[in-house]
């Protein structure tokens, strides 16, 4: 009891604790304000038509379907590139590599890659993927100007490099949390290292890896700066789809060689470069609401996954 009383006499402490409480409350209010503002302004625009139709009338009316499709297409290819590379990289760092100067350099590189400004990734995508890889592919394959120009595949590749650290770090955490005793048990049964990784470690790490994947998708879908000069377009009447035909049988596929519309870029364009920013204001809020719903759902899923994953591990 005397301790409790003493606590209240400690005025500076009382002030300090409530100040931090207030600061945190401010943070929550800021987040709430952002969400409420977007939802209130954007909700009236959202309709099936808005989601499923193209922009019309010089982008002052209509929907955002091509932008949604482009975002999905780009992030899909991105995760296809980044996921295997990230998981393999993390497996090497956690399972095979010994703690040497070299692996420490790799770990530093992972952290540093996460801190590279997104616009620099855009420059890198332009300099490396388009002007080096693309141009050289054109020269070798004699395809004229097919690869050496901004296209969906280069945007996806660049975003893949951008989200690589997210996947590596979360996979590392997941692998690291698999108890050593499980590995030992597997070795004790005579399993080799690869058999142990494949049958014991990876299945247990799967929820953690999934968390990283979801976070990476959400990050990729929200990035604008890297795709600015890698093929994001103001407006495209056609979706970047190509029919892949085997005889009479045709399957529509994402065309990696075309330009694309991107939801985040679409918001930027509508807000800053459109012919009539005031008239398109509802469209801007609508697009923002769609984007933020997408990223928030992904983030919340990831947080729930991680929470459950940690709980399961806590029980082990």
């Amino acid at each position, binding site marked *: 009891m005397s301790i409790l009383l003493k606590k209240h006499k400690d005025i500076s402490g009382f002030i300090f604790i409530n100040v931090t409480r207030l600061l945190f409350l401010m*943070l929550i209010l800021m987040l709430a304000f952002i969400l409420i503002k977007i939802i209130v302004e954007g909700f009236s625009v959202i309709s099936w038509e808005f989601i499923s139709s193209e922009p019309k009338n010089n982008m002052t009316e209509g929907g955002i379907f091509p932008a949604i499709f482009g975002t999905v297409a780009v992030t899909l290819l991105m995760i296809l590139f980044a996921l295997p590379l990230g998981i393999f990289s993390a497996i090497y760092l956690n399972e095979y590599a010994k703690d040497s100067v070299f692996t420490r350099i790799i770990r530093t*590189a992972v952290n540093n890659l996460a801190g*590279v400004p997104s616009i620099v990734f855009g420059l890198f995508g332009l300099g490396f993927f388009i002007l080096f890889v693309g141009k050289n592919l054109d020269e070798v394959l004699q395809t004229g100007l097919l690869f050496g120009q901004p296209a969906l595949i280069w945007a996806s590749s660049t975003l893949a490099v951008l989200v690589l650290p997210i996947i590596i770090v979360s996979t590392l955490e997941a692998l690291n949390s698999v108890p050593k005793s499980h590995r030992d048990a597997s070795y004790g049964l005579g399993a080799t*290292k690869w058999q142990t990784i494949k049958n014991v470690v990876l299945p247990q790490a799967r929820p953690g890896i999934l968390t990283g994947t979801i976070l990476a998708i959400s990050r990729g879908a929200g990035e604008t700066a890297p795709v600015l000069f890698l093929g994001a377009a103001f407006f495209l009447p056609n979706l970047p789809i190509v029919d892949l035909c085997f005889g009479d049988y045709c399957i529509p596929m994402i065309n990696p060689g075309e330009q694309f519309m991107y939801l985040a870029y679409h918001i930027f364009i509508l807000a800053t470069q459109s012919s009539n920013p005031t008239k398109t204001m509802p469209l801007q809020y609508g697009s923002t609401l769609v984007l933020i719903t997408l990223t928030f759902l992904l983030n919340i899923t990831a*947080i729930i996954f991680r929470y459950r994953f940690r709980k399961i591990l806590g029980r082990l």
Partner: protein
Amino acid sequence: MDKEINIGDTISKGDVPNDITMNSSPFSKKIKQSTRIKESLIKYFFAINGTAALIFIILIFIFLFKEGFRAFEHIQLVDFIYHNRLAEDGTSSKVFEWFPTSDEARYSLIPLILGTLLTAIPATILSTILGVGAGIYLAEIANPKAKEILKPIVELFAGIPTVVLGFLMLVVGASFFNDLLNPTNRLNAFIAALGLSFVVIPIIASLTEDALHSIPNDLRMASYGIGATKWQTISKVILPAATSGISASILLGFGRAIGETMIVLMAAGNAANITSNIFQSVRTMTATIAAEMGEVSQGSDHYFALFFIGIVLFTITFFLNLIAEVIINKMRKKNTF
């Protein structure tokens, strides 16, 4: 399972290996040759993939410098600092302007660097106050139940796409502060800094929380044990012990503020003013690249100059990250007894 490993052997030697790699296993002779080759191939496959992050950092470095250094074919290094303008009467004066598209092209990075600092520094100061406060609250004051809900909120905060923040500052923030403070320009460094702090606060908050969390509980218990209050413990024991971790979080937040593009592109006004007035429009390095790269013709001086800005940005953030990393590693070593 490999049937050729003799389990009897394992027991008789009394030494269970916890790590059957091909070279270190004492039973390596009993493993099939083909299995051994397969295992080592798999190991090398992972090793190649393992270096991916390092390779990409090196590639970014190479290709930024490859394009950026071609700027020096026609532009001198001093041109990136000032431009010598010759007046009619033969006298020359130094101009600090970024104006690469004019006939008399001027490439001074000074207004862009100052613009970057004028947005990034206020953003970092504001975020330090809010972020460190929130981090302390999360780590030391909030009860565990509340923490389980509050921590994800900070993570959600970090997940807001920057273009959304830029958009909100442009349409809501700018109008609000235009009426309230009557700034020189409607879009200005202050608005951009405010938007940036939304990005930096979650970074500083979660890293501060990590830093405080990594401090051994023994320190807290010892402090309480000699009769210190919570406030005394936090201010005299915990915070001094976490100083390095917190400063690393501030450095990382500052690096992020410098490298952020969309918010400053949309809210800072994009006029390359040299000013210390936070209510005036400025133009940052990132916004310059984003705004001009789309229209510049490939292979021109202007194009290479934009890559040179990329080099400057990359170098600054690279070293900020590196310093923060060193500080964090030192802290981890110190806190594991």
